[in-house]
């Protein structure tokens, strides 16, 4: 999909109108869409074989393989397994896009290249992207990556293998189709499914073996249930998620916080009126001074 002038202007007009009279997006993104899908990663099951890293590259046609393993998410790595290790504890950890219920990247993207679409999957549209990389700054999980080393760089981030699981012609999920990483995992440490089913599954795992999972005050925690406004990728682990590289966010999404600040400034049209009022005042004073000099 390429964009013509008309669409661009339309988009700008809509964006402008949105800034003037904001639709309360926070309410729209308060909960996951009804048909939301996601993943559940259970760090206690992961054995660090990194099959998912290779499978992700295969599924997304990205360069690199197991024999030249990536160190971190990058312009050609959408999914990574890393290891936390200290004197007496260790755990593997998977990183990929969290598919936020209220995504910071989509909120920051001024041109709508990032969108939360069917099934709550956040996709990126190369034809819209202008390469500003605000998404990288806006993501609390540090996920979107920019291809610094290519002439025509892309933003690279996990899209839950949307091209595999989602049939664009019928608009439905393909029967039995799984994202690359979930196909590959030999231990079912990462599974794909309906968001609500995954939450049930995670709760059941906790109920069965509560001693296996970490949580504040000994209460096992599902990361992503409420963190940062909730994410469609959920995590279970036996270590503090902070050690595993996940930030401690409140129940409020960073996108919501950003919106509140921005919308707060423009509330009731006060800020533009005040700004133009001051400018007008300055001009009036300058004019008066000039006239006096002439006179």
């Amino acid at each position: 999909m390429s964009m013509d002038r008309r669409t661009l202007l339309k988009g700008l007009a809509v964006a402008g109108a949105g800034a003037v009279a904001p639709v309360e997006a926070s309410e729209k993104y308060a909960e996951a869409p009804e048909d939301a899908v996601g993943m559940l990663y259970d760090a206690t099951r992961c054995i660090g074989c990194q099959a998912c890293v290779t499978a992700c590259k295969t599924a997304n046609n990205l360069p690199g393989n197991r024999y030249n393993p990536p160190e971190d998410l990058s312009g050609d790595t959408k999914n990574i397994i890393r290891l936390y290790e200290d004197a007496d504890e260790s755990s593997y950890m998977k990183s990929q896009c969290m598919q936020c219920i209220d995504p910071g990247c989509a909120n920051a993207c001024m041109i709508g290249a990032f969108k939360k679409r069917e099934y709550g999957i956040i996709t990126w549209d190369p034809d819209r992207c202008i390469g500003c990389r605000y998404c990288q700054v806006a993501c609390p999980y540090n996920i979107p990556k920019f291809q610094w080393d290519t002439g025509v760089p892309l933003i690279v981030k996990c899209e839950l293998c949307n091209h595999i699981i989602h049939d664009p012609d019928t608009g439905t999920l393909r029967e039995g189709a799984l994202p690359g990483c979930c196909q590959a995992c030999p231990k079912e440490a990462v599974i794909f499914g309906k968001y609500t089913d995954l939450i049930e599954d995670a709760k059941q795992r906790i109920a069965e073996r509560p001693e296996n999972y970490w949580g504040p005050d000994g209460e096992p925690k599902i990361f992503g249930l409420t963190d940062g406004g909730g994410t469609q990728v959920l995590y279970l682990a036996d270590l503090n998620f902070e050690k595993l590289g996940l930030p401690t966010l409140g129940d409020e999404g960073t996108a919501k916080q950003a919106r509140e600040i921005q919308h707060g400034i423009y509330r009731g049209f006060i800020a533009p009126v005040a700004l133009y009022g001051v400018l007008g005042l300055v001009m009036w004073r300058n004019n008066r001074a000039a006239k006096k000099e002439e006179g």
Partner: protein
Amino acid sequence: MGRRDEWLDLPADLTDDGVDRRDFVKVCMLAAAALGLPAATGVKWAEAAESGLKPSVIWLHFQECTGCTESLLRTSHPGLGTLILDMISLDYHETLFAAAGHQIEKCLHDAVEAGGYICVVEGAIPTKEDGIYCQIAGRTAIDILQDVGGKAAAVIAIGSCASWGGIPSADPNPTGAVGAQEILPDKTVINLPGCPSNPYNFLGVVLQFATMGTLPALDDEGRPLFAYGRTIHEHCPRRAHFDAGRFARQFGDEGHNLGYCLFAMGCKGPETYANCSTLHFNEVPDAWPIGIGAPCFGCTTKGVGFTKPLFQEAALPPNYVPPIHPSDQRGPITPGWAGVVGLATGAAVGGALMASKKLGEGETEGS
């Protein structure tokens, strides 16, 4: 065996009178090649055998299924006939002996008296109730092993039973079965675990001892490093499928038919130390569990085979996984800090503006 020998242009039976030196040396060289040793070693073996330096071997059977012997019977480089008639002097072996009763016991006695023999132990030794669960000629397995093994020049424990207890020692271990090393704590026992043990590993050890009088380098569990130094996983022909994340999920599924990695079905290759993946059994290509599509059972490794459930996933050996650095995390960006940075930037911009204005004024004045 006959057919295979025909392919290799070898006489069907080397014990015939028609065997010349050339054929015999050829067999020894083939045996050396099968073990990954240089051809010159084969020539040495042949020379040793010709000069009558055949080592005496006493083979003891205890709690076992004779599988290791059966496996050895089916080797062809060298064939068992060549091995026991030309290369070693098998003085006592309950499965292969024609004699019985007092006659065979006398042979055993004579061989022990002569000394300098290799004692091969097949099977675990029961220790409960003073070892009454396995007795031969009125003697318990403990007695026999302490007597024969104690005087041996070298003790080889063939199979998992003799190495560390194997099946007989599986929980609840009703007979208190243990490996040969526990009965002979002061002796160096060469363990060749496996169920069955690969006959070539056995032949390699025996022929090295017969030819050079030395024993192979051992690990801390008494296993020769040449055979048990690495895990099956390290050289598995299906390893590429593991690395690419292609796993068979159940017997007969698409991945299984395509020969994908069996790890997800509980293959113990990653924690099993043996050379099965590079040295298949009895010269038949792919004649080993993973080769025929069955997950490795971990038979050579104590605590894995006969201990862990067949379909339970194996523990992976340490592998390179990129670390999580605390510095990867974003620092806390508070509104206060944002304000400070904003003020600093504003001051810098304002300062620069003022400076440039002054510079401009200076230029106008100067011109």
